[in-house]
């Protein structure tokens, strides 16, 4: 299948522990921030998004935190499972820029049994 990336930063986590993936973004005028998951050989899959006027949003086993002061975004995955192994991308979208999504470079999450 299609490889995602050979030289991505990697986060190794014990199965059952919580994972925290971090991302720095560039555009302070972005309207939404998004996390995508990409498994080997597949296209990216939407996980969760957060509006720029929020600082926290929770989904099923995932939480996204937004710190606009330092332009930092994080994705927390609770009770990490083997199926969480993937590359995770943060992305930002600005409606004033024709709603184009700008992707970050990605972090590979590796689960230890």
């Amino acid at each position, binding site marked *: 299948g299609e490889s995602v990336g050979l*030289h991505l930063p990697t986060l190794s986590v014990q199965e059952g522990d919580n994972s925290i993936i971090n991302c720095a973004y560039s555009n302070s005028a972005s309207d939404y921030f998004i996390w995508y998951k990409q498994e080997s050989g597949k*296209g*990216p*899959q939407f996980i969760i*998004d957060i509006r720029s006027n929020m600082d926290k949003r929770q989904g099923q086993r995932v939480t996204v935190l937004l710190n606009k002061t330092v332009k930092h975004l994080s994705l927390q995955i609770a009770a990490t499972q083997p199926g969480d192994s993937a590359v995770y991308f943060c992305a930002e*979208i600005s409606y004033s820029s*024709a709603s184009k999504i700008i992707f970050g470079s990605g972090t590979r999450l590796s689960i230890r049994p």
Partner: protein
Amino acid sequence: NAGVTQTPKFRVLKTGQSMTLLCAQDMNHEYMYWYRQDPGMGLRLIHYSVGEGTTAKGEVPDGYNVSRLKKQNFLLGLESAAPSQTSVYFCASNNPGGRYNEQFFGPGTRLTVL
């Protein structure tokens, strides 16, 4: 529903050859996008379309052309392939309303230009 499909899955070209990548979606989405993904990098937007008959340039449009003659199809063309266009190409689609930010991606096309 098949979602977003892409053809072909793999292709090898020689420098200077041309080809067209086809993206099809059966979700009646208005917006469609073409991205490329290089090793160690995130996706970069090549071209996009906000409706049938419309196209617009993205972040890295040079060397590519697109057409959206039918709502369900978005074609990406390379007129004269170069080794720098070796990459994995992803198509995506979504609608401007509802879960606006949720783009649905195809499985990708791996293109190698020799």
